[in-house]
Structures are given as C-alpha cells and as structure tokens.
C-alpha cells in the first residue's frame, strides 16, 4: 500500500481539472476524485487492520523513505498508525461532503476546486509524514489556499477575515518552525521515528522549545487567546472551506500538538500541563458563553468550534492515557460534526440568503431534511449518547478526572459544566431557526435539500452514528 497515493491522487485530480472544459465537467471530475480518495482511505483502513493483526508490534505501518535534502537530513518519510488512518478517513469523508456542497458555486469553478483539492493534499500529506520537515511542508501547503478561498468566494467581511486567518496561521507556522529547528538542533535529524525510539531530550532544551511547538500548533487548534481567527475566518468562508477549516484544519493543530509537541517532549509537557489545562478550560467555558450571545448561525458554529476544540487541548493537557484517547476521539467526532453543521447552515444560507437567527424561523416544515441534519449536528454538539460527541467528551472527562489535584478537578468540573451552556445555545439556535412559525412568507417557496446535499448529509451522519453507537472499533484503532 503506497501511502504516497494519498497525495498523488488529489494532485492528479487537479491536473485533470486543467483539461476540463465546462463547469459541469469540473464538478464531476472533482467528485470522482474525492470519492476515489474515500474508497482509498477505506481500503487503507482495512489493510491496516489486517496488517496490524499480523505484525502487532510495529507501530507504524506502510513506511517508505526517500532522501530529499541529504545535507540537512531531510527525508520524505511516510507511514501510518491507527490514529493517522482515522484522521485520513475523516479527511476523505469531509472532502467528499465539501465537494458535494459546492455544487452550485457560480464563478471561477475550476480554481475553486483546484484550491480545495490542494488543501486536501496538504492535509493527507500532513497526516502521513514521519519526518518533521515534511510534516511542516505539508502544513504550509494547506495555509495559502485557505486565504484565496475565503478572500474570493467568501461572504461578509471576507478580505479582512482571509487576511486575519492567513496571518495568524502563518504566525502559528512560524512558531512551529522555530520549534522544529530547535528539535533539529538537538537531535540533528528530522526523523520522528528515530526520535520516538531514542530517549527524551534534555529537559532544558525541552522546556525552551515546547512552548513554541505547542503554541504554534495550538493556534491552529484555537488555543486561547489566539483563537480569534476562528469566528471571522469560518464565518466568512464559503461552505466547503468552512467545512474543511473547522473539520480538518483545526485538527492539524491538534494532531501536531499530540504527535509532535507532547510525544517528543513529554517532560516539558508535564511541566507546562497546568498552563495548558487552564488555557483549554478557559477556551471551553469562555467559548461556550461567547457562543450564547451570537446572532449569526455561522458565528454560533465557529465559536462552538473554539469551545469543542478546547476539549482536544484539555485532553492533551491532562496527559493521562484515557484523556489522550479522548482528545483523538474528539478530533474525529468534532470534525464530522462541525462539517455536517456547516453543510446544513450553508444549505440554509443558499436558500434564504441570511444567516441571522432572528430572521429565520419555522424552517422545519419547509425543508425537513435539512432541518433533521441540523438537529442531528446540534445534538451531536451537545453530546447526546448515540452520536459521536458523547463518546469523545465522556472519554475526555473520565480521563481528566483521573488527575486528582484540586486544580485539575476544578478544570474538569468547569469543562463538564459547559455541556449545559452548549445545550442552551444549540437549543436556542434550533428553536429559533427551525421551529416556531415561519418568519418570512417568502420562505414558503423554498425547496428542500437536493441530491448533493442529501448525500453529504447522509455520509456525515452515517459517520457520526457509527462512531456514536459502536465506538469500540475506533478506540481500539486509536489505542493500537
């Protein structure tokens, strides 16, 4: 199983797009491309399982190495373990959803899909890299297309939002790069596998470079107080970009924090743990309160993403095995859930041309399918059992409770309290947009979801339900 296929396929699709002549061709070629990608990731999952049953000991499978810049010890080194496989599957599903949801983009269709596919190539590369430099390379690949997507096809204050997002993410990458260089200076190699198997670095080096790595990746994952790119960025972006941003891009940060920062520098992580936990808890609670006050559906979802990604950082900060598993589960669950939510909001916006909650109302009668998708996404956000959000959040809570110092217990209690605030804002949004009398008589003539939106909804809901009702396969995958 050649992992580089995961990167080659999107690039190939982009190449094919160059030869497309009509908008319809562009859409179909992209759709086929991402569907093939999804099939490939499912195949990867199956192969991984089979291989893992055979070689239980090795952690990373399907490795391949190629020297790139030998003078600096940079290699193109890829491999996957259970977590990477799960993240690749997540990326594939969200990408299919994103392409389907963008079926009705009117202007510059080819460029849009090219940029979207480039984003996905960056994400896949990130998840399979085992060489720090390659990891960073793919991280960067996925930043610039976001700027273009938001700035050109977005809505609202899109230029401002695009600029803010790009600059803040670049700042994050810059900090990460300092951290990466620090690691290189210490270990004289970018090879993650070698560094995992060797002992830890001296504490003084760890202490100095850990903040760079963690904060750098944390900016991608909405670490308080560097989260302000999230509300404007996600809300001004076109639906597909929002889905990718919230669903995958924020997980790049989480994956980086867990896989690179904490795994390479565990002692420093333990030292900085109170700080991380504090910032994560503030993000969760403060994010939830700020969400309550928002009037725009997309802002509600964006702030809610800040709050939910706080769980990832909380799990990362608590450092117990259960909490770390919970953080990975939350990455996957939140990715699916927020993509679904943005898809629903995007469908509503496309039809009603407004995202303000006060102007919407009674949409359940008019578009029952979209309303059901909206409700399912909302229920997943509030952690209803049977959906994936519950599994992830409860694992984080149980893992966090293991640390019995009173400060950590307080942080856990406050984070648990956020489930109430989440219920408040989700139900307010649902109640006002979907239920009640129809606000504007013009809405009566709107149509329900078309085939592309239905397919997106069904795909993502299926993912959420599978994880929610049968989480054992996923936890096994993550725990190797």
């Amino acid at each position, binding site marked *: 199983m050649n992992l580089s296929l995961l990167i080659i396929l999107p690039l190939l699709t982009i190449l094919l797009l160059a030869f497309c002549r009509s908008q319809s061709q562009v859409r179909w070629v992209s759709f086929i491309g991402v569907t093939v990608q999804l099939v490939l990731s499912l195949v990867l999952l199956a192969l991984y399982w089979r291989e893992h049953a055979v070689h239980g000991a090795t952690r990373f499978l399907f490795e391949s190495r190629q020297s790139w810049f030998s003078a600096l010890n940079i290699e193109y080194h890829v491999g996957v373990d259970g977590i990477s496989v799960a993240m690749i599957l997540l990326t594939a599903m969200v990408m299919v959803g994103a392409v389907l949801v963008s079926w009705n983009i009117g202007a510059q269709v080819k460029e849009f899909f090219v940029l979207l596919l480039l984003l996905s190539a960056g994400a896949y590369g990130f998840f399979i890299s085992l060489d720090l430099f390659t990891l960073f390379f793919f991280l960067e690949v996925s930043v610039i297309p976001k700027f273009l997507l938001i700035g050109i096809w977005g809505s609202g204050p899109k230029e401002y939002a695009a600029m803010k997002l790009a600059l803040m993410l670049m700042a994050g990458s810059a900090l990460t790069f300092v951290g990466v260089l620090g690691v290189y200076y210490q270990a004289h190699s970018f090879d993650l596998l070698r560094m995992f198997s060797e002992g830890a670095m001296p504490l003084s080096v760890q202490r100095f470079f850990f903040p760079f790595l963690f904060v750098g990746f944390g900016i991608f994952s909405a670490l308080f107080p560097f989260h302000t790119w999230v509300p404007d960025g996600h809300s001004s972006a076109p639906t597909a970009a929002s889905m990718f941003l919230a669903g995958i891009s924020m997980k790049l940060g989480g994956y980086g924090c867990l896989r690179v920062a904490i795994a390479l520098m565990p002692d420093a992580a333990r030292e900085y743990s109170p700080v991380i936990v504090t910032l994560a808890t503030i993000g969760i609670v403060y994010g939830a309160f700020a969400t309550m006050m928002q009037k725009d559906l997309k802002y509600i979802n964006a702030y809610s993403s800040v709050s939910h990604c706080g769980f990832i950082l909380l799990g990362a900060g608590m450092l117990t095995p259960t909490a770390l598993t919970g953080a990975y589960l939350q990455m996957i669950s939140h990715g699916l859930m927020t993509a679904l939510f943005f898809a629903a909001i995007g469908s509503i916006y496309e039809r009603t041309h407004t995202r303000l909650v006060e102007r919407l109302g009674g949409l359940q009668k008019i578009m029952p399918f979209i309303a059901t998708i909206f409700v399912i996404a909302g229920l997943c956000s509030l*952690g209803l059992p049977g959906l994936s959000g519950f599994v992830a959040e409860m694992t984080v809570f149980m893992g966090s409770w293991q640390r019995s110092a009173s400060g950590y217990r307080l942080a856990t209690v406050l984070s648990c309290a956020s489930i109430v605030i989440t219920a408040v804002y989700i139900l307010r949004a649902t109640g006002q947009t979907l239920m009640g009398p129809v606000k504007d008589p013009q809405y009566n003539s709107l149509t329900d979801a078309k085939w592309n939106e239905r397919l997106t909804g069904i795909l993502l809901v299926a993912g959420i339900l599978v994880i929610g009702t049968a989480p054992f396969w996923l936890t096994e995958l993550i725990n190797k």
Partner: protein
Amino acid sequence: MPNTAYILLILLLPLFGFVLLGLFGRRYIRGFSGVIGAALLFVSTLCALYVAYNYFSGNAGMPALRRTYTLFGATWLSFGRDLSIDMGILIDPISAMMIVVVTVISLMVHVFSLGYMKGEERYSTYYAFLGLFTFSMLGLVLSSNIFETYIFWELVGVSSFLLIGFYYDRPTAVAAAKKAFIVTRFADLGFLIGILILSFQAQTLDFGWLINNLSSFEHSPFNEPPVFLGLPLVDWGLILVFIGGAGKSALFPLHIWLPDAMEGPTPVSALIHAATMVVAGVYLVARLYPLYTLTRDVQQVVLYVGAISALLAAIIACTQTDIKRVLAYSTMSQIGYMMFALGTYRLFPPSLVDPKIGFIGSMFHLFTHAFFKALLFLCAGVIIHLVHSNEMKDMGGLRKRLPLAHICFLIACLAISGIPPFSGFFSKEDILSAAWRADKFIYAIALFTSGLTAFYMFRLYFSVFWNKPATGHPHAQPLVESIPLVILAIGAAFAGLIPFSHLLIVGGHVHSTIGRNAVPPVLIALLGIGIAAWLYYKQSDRPQKAAAAFRGLYTAAYHKFYIDELYLFVTKKIIFNCIGRPAAWIDRNIVDGLMNGLAVATARISATIKGIQSGKVQDYAWFFFVGIAGLAILFIYIVR
C-alpha cells in the same frame, strides 16, 4: 437462557418501531403507523409480562436473585484498565417491576393515541418518537452500568424534548421543550460529576461492583475526611447523582419544567410526565439504594427535598385552573412522596419494623401512581377533546356527556387520595409508616399534604363533572380511547392487592395494614374531599371567598411562588448579561482587539520605515557608499 431473547425483544421492538416509522413513516406507511407502533409495543408488553412473571414466580422460596446478563462481550467504550461502559442488562425486582410499568402504560398510550391523534399531520413521526421514548426508558431501567443509565437518561431527555415540542409551530411549545431539556441538562451535569466521583472511588462503573466496592467496611470511603462543606467526597458523589435524579423527577427546585411540559400532546403527558420519565430519578436513587442507606447526611437531603416538593406542589395545585397543570403539580407532589420515602432508612430507631419499608412504599407508590396518574391524564385528554379547552371554567357538569371518563376519573381520584380499598391507600400507607418512624415532623407534612391532595383532586373532579347542571347525551367515544381507560382503572383499583413487600425484598415482612396508623390519612383525606365538595359541588361564590380569606398565600401559590420569575431573572440578567455578554464583548474587543492592534502596530511601523524606499537614486547611492565605507572600516580596523 431463553429469557435473554425475550428481554432483548422488549428493548428492541420499540427501537425498531422508531427507525421504521422515522425513516419510512411519513411517505410510505402514513395512517398505518399507529397500528404498527401499537402492535410492536403489544408484543413487547407480552414479553415484559412473561419475563416478570418468570422472575417473580421463580422467587418463591428462593432469595431474590439479581441476575445480570452482559451482552456485547467486548466493552462498548473503554476508559482504561478497569473502567469501561459495558452494555449489559440487569434484572432485579425493581427493574422487573419497571419493565411491566413502562410497557403497559406505553401500550395504553399507544392505543389511546390511535384515536386521540388521528388525523394529525405528523402522525407517524409521533409514533416514531413514542417508540424512541419507550426504548430509552426501558434501556434506562434495564442498565447494568451507571454510565449506560446515563446514556439512556439523555436519550429519554431528548425524546421528551421532541415530544413536548411536537407541535413545533407553537412558540410556547418550543419554549417549553427547550426549558425542559435545559433544566434536566443542568441536573444531568450533577449526575455526570457524580458518576465521575463514584466511579473513581470504586474503580468501576458496573452497578453491582460499584455498590460492592463502596460499601465495604474496610477503608470505607464514607469514613474519609471531609472534602467540602464537611462531607466526604463519596457523599458529594451521591448528592450529585441525586441532583440528577431530582431534575428528571421535577423535584424542588428543579421542577419548573414540568408544568410547562404540558404543552405536549396529552397522551405524551400521560406517558412521560406522569408515569415513566419523571420517576426515573426515583428509580436511580432506588438503584443505588444500598449506598444511600449508608450515609445519614445524604439521606437527610433526599428526605427534605422530597418532602418540600410534595408540600409545595400540593399548595400550588390548589390554586391552578388549567386541568393539566393541576395534574402536573399533582405528579410532582406524588414523586416527592416517593423520594422522601427513600430517605427514611437511616433515621429509623431500632424497632420491629423493617427500615426498608420506605423503599417498599416508594416502589409500590411508583407502581400504583403510574396507573392512576396515567388514567387521570388520559381522561383529561378525553375531556379536553370534548370542550376544546384546558381551563376548568370551560368545563362543568360533564358527567352525563362522558360517563366512562367520569367513573374512571372518580376511581383515580379516590386512589390518589388514599381511600381504601383502592391502590393508593396501600402504597401511601407504607410511605406514611416510614415517615412516622423516621421523623415526626416529616410525617406531619406528609399527612397534611395527603389532605391537600384529596382536596385539590376532588376540587378538580367536582369542577369538571359537577358544578354546573349536567346536560347532554353521552359523547361517542372511540373504542381505542375507552379500552385503555378501563384497563388503567382496573389497575388503579386493584393494584393495591399485590403483595409488594414479598416481591421486592427477601423475607419481606407481612405488615398489617389495618392498624392505628392507617386511620389518620383516611380521615384527613375524607376531610379534604368534604371541603372540596362543599366548595365546588355547586356553582357558588364560596371558592372566591375562600381564596380571599387566604389572599397572600393564594396569590403566591397561584403564581407558583414566583420561582419561574426567579429563574428567569438569574438566567437572563445574571448569566446572560453578566457573563455571556461580557464574554462576547471581551472576545470581540479585547482579545481580537489585541490581534487587530498588532496588525495596526505593524502597519504603522511599516508606514514609518517605508520612507527609506524613496525612489531617488541618489539616496540609494548614499546608502551604498555608507555601507561600503562602514564595512571597510569594520574589516580593516576592527576585525583583524
């Protein structure tokens, strides 16, 4: 064990109904959905009765076995070495009793709705939600793992939300559904933290092991040093779990959602907010009863919260004019009874009477209450359908037009008032015995409350069926609406004859119900009925005069003691305005302002420096020269 298959059927048939009717009901099955839903539930009920019969009859001469079937040999969600959520099924006396209650009442509601909800636009969605609710409630009572209970607990909450908000184009219904969900969510937070505490202390989530580990006498967690407000951590765990139960069971002060929940269709109120969901909290405490009996402080909490709820609700019910709201407060009051009975164990002085009588009374009352309360609600449904209004003033003299409803309502009122030989008498008697032995003050409150219960129930009865002259012909009632009423009436009348104490406890004592303690409640009840008759039998101004006599208390009770207003104040003014708004403002202006400020600062610095790029060649030449000169001096004189 063949029983496993039946138990699974009990659980899965309603779930299958939900999926089937939810996905295909709207377009393909339509009007047939009700029959499908009811048929599935009928099979489920038969299985439940069969399993319960097997369980209890196998009991004769053998100790009460707690049989735990664990399905899904692999765990569902693992949290590490010992802790995991395992999906399992626990059959013990109370769960066997509960599956009977839940399936029978649910079946009655399904059948009743065939007539009541006929012609409704979202008929199949209604039955789908009913199926979801029944599945969740059955899962809740059958769970063997405390987190599994939490899972089904939340599912029950969502079903309740969907059903209360069934008429979703009515803003009041949407608001009521939201309120119910949020209040119970807040309570669920307590439940969750309680689970975290208890599971950490016991290192397990399974009920059997949990109770076992926490009640061991060596290194008992109950003897640990106090951690907060003078109570050890495990006590706090139990209190938090109780708070979770109190929210679901609408006990003071988390009761505010229950009256508003009457916005849902009346059969839903019968099922969820009378007989099944609201008793989930009582069931949870009963499930963990061996732990609750170990600590005196927590028992006090349970006792007082239950008693206050019972009394408060009874007072408010005396002033309400909406028939469903009277019944809602009545439910809250009866649940208060059930709850405080569970708090009496520790307080018993040594005596011949088994202190478990509180537990027995509570469960017995749960059983009987399900019957007569559901009956009351279904009769209310019939009445409301007839007069097209919920207000008592639009009713009156209906006994000729609704003869069957009249008889059933009367039976139910007699049962709830505790008049022998109806079922309520037996169950209340056990509870009052427990109260008498535990705390005389609580006994006094309970006695007074039962008087009030009789009063407000018969106030309702007389206002609806008497009061005005009785005219008219009997209203044609569909058979599907009549049969459930009759069945429930039989249950309400004769359920008292079931020897509950035998069933629930090993070697349960046979206590004589005909004793001195049985008389005062009956007398007080008759007094209450008498006063109600005097005030409401005929139309007069006596009620207004009575209300004027108690003016202050009456007004306060009519406005439900302003508790709703207090909550609104706290949430809107304090939480929204003092926490939410500032949070959003800080984020937009301070945190984001910082980022924007950085950008502005960078731009300003850049604007200042850009002058170097003046576009004039001679300036550049100068820079050249200075640079070269500088480097030259550097290398010639300084760096050797």
